[in-house]
């Protein structure tokens, strides 16, 4: 069921517009560079004239790998660790690192289309702790807050 907000640890990273998640970044007023997440100055030209920007919600996989062992803290480890795919998603103006879901981990390919999703990564986590990830875009639908 889509919601209209995200948990506090995602505030500043994610906004919800009409039930759809948006990643929040910064855009440099001087050179146009976009970053994720928000930062107070431009890493390219050092300008402090930056403002928040909503990033694209769809993109393509620029590179990927599979995390096959459980990371150490602060990773929120589920009771049973399952390998997960992750990669950099090319959003046109910036490439964002995120976990990838929606197909078997070893089947990802560079260039695969994906869309942004926000929701609970671990169904057994009673807090319903939210994360963002990109999922395989097979039908052209918009991403969701789950």
């Amino acid at each position, binding site marked *: 069921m889509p919601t209209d907000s995200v948990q506090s640890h995602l505030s500043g990273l994610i906004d919800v517009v009409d039930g759809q998640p948006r990643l929040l970044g910064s855009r440099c007023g001087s050179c146009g560079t976009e970053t*994720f997440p928000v930062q107070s100055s431009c890493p390219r030209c050092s300008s402090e004239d930056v403002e928040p920007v909503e990033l694209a919600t769809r993109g393509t996989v620029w590179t990927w*790998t*599979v995390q096959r062992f459980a990371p150490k*803290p602060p990773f929120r480890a589920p009771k049973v660790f399952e390998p997960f795919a992750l990669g*950099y998603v090319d959003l046109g103006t910036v490439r964002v*690192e995120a976990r990838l879901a929606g197909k078997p981990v070893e089947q990802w390919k560079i260039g695969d289309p994906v869309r942004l999703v926000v929701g609970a990564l671990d169904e057994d986590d009673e807090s319903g702790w939210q994360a963002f990830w990109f999922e395989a875009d097979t039908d052209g639908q918009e991403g969701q807050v789950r």
Partner: protein
Amino acid sequence: MDVAIVGVGLHPFGRFPTPAQDMATTAIRAALTDTGVQWSDIDFAVGGSRDGGHADALVQDLGLTGTPFMNVYNGCATGGSALLSGANAIASGMADLVLVIGFDKHERGAFATNPAEYGIGEWFGEMGMMVTTQFFGMKIQRYLDQYDLDPRLLAELSAKALRNGARNPNAWRRHALSVDEIADAEMVNDPLTKYMFCSPSEGAASLVLASPAKARELRDDPVWLRAVEFRTRKYGTFEVFSPSLAVEGSPSATEFAAKAAFESAGVGPDDIDVAQVQDTEAGAELMHLAETGLCEHGQQSDLIMSGALEIDGRLPVNTDGGCIANGEPIGASGLRQVIECTLQLQGRADGRQVPDNPRTAFTQVYGAPGLSTCTVLTR
């Protein structure tokens, strides 16, 4: 740069019951003995460690002589920063005889890193992305695709590292594995299998540096540090612990540091007789071969498959087994590379000596979050 290496000392790399600071003093005493001097002769010292404690605390064991002793830290490239600081102490005239030390003792498994230390929110680690090994997998995955290189080259490089490590009594991994055993091993972060990674380990490495006049007093075969160049990343590179990357690309920190080192030394990549490059995993060596200028991007296949990188090849690389065979005590790792080149140039690399009296050597160390130090050494 007119700075000489007049002595080297190592505590073997691997896993030991020994406290980190005892490994450090063992390496320092070996370097002092190799130089033929006492700790009280040293007029400046510099060192670094991530998990082994403060370098300057070693004076309690070495002797409380009042010598200035500076601590440095730059991740996996800490050894490069220690060397640069020591060399500059001599080049500036501040000191004539300098001790450099790197040591470490890490817990098992991939490093646990606090995102806040890199200016990143907790969420990045909570979601499972604060992991160095993932970055290595993603970077080489992209590189192999970009240059249409065979992933099997990664297994070839690991096999070379372990072959060389088997010939080095100070290495941790001294058991050669076949290319098939490496390629078919458990996948850790695709396309990298478990035998393609180095592991955090333990050990210590120390050098004594001297001014030219002092060097001539001490030995007739000093090795000359012709260049030490250190660069951090520019906008557009692909580095570890990056929540996002730029769409526009840039040469890496290694490319700028290597170019500066060659220019400063007045030699080119074609002049190099032996090299040590950062091989945190086999993909790093593959990319660094090109980033350093030792070959063109995409041309690694010829170099690897022709045997050119072997100890008896045209361009021997990672002759002591590199990080893959030695593991990575990150304070010591960059200094291990310089020690190996020093021994090779002096003809003292027992069991793994590069033939035909190599004259010119090169080292490159890389650390998070995107920095590199390169050196050029000559006899």
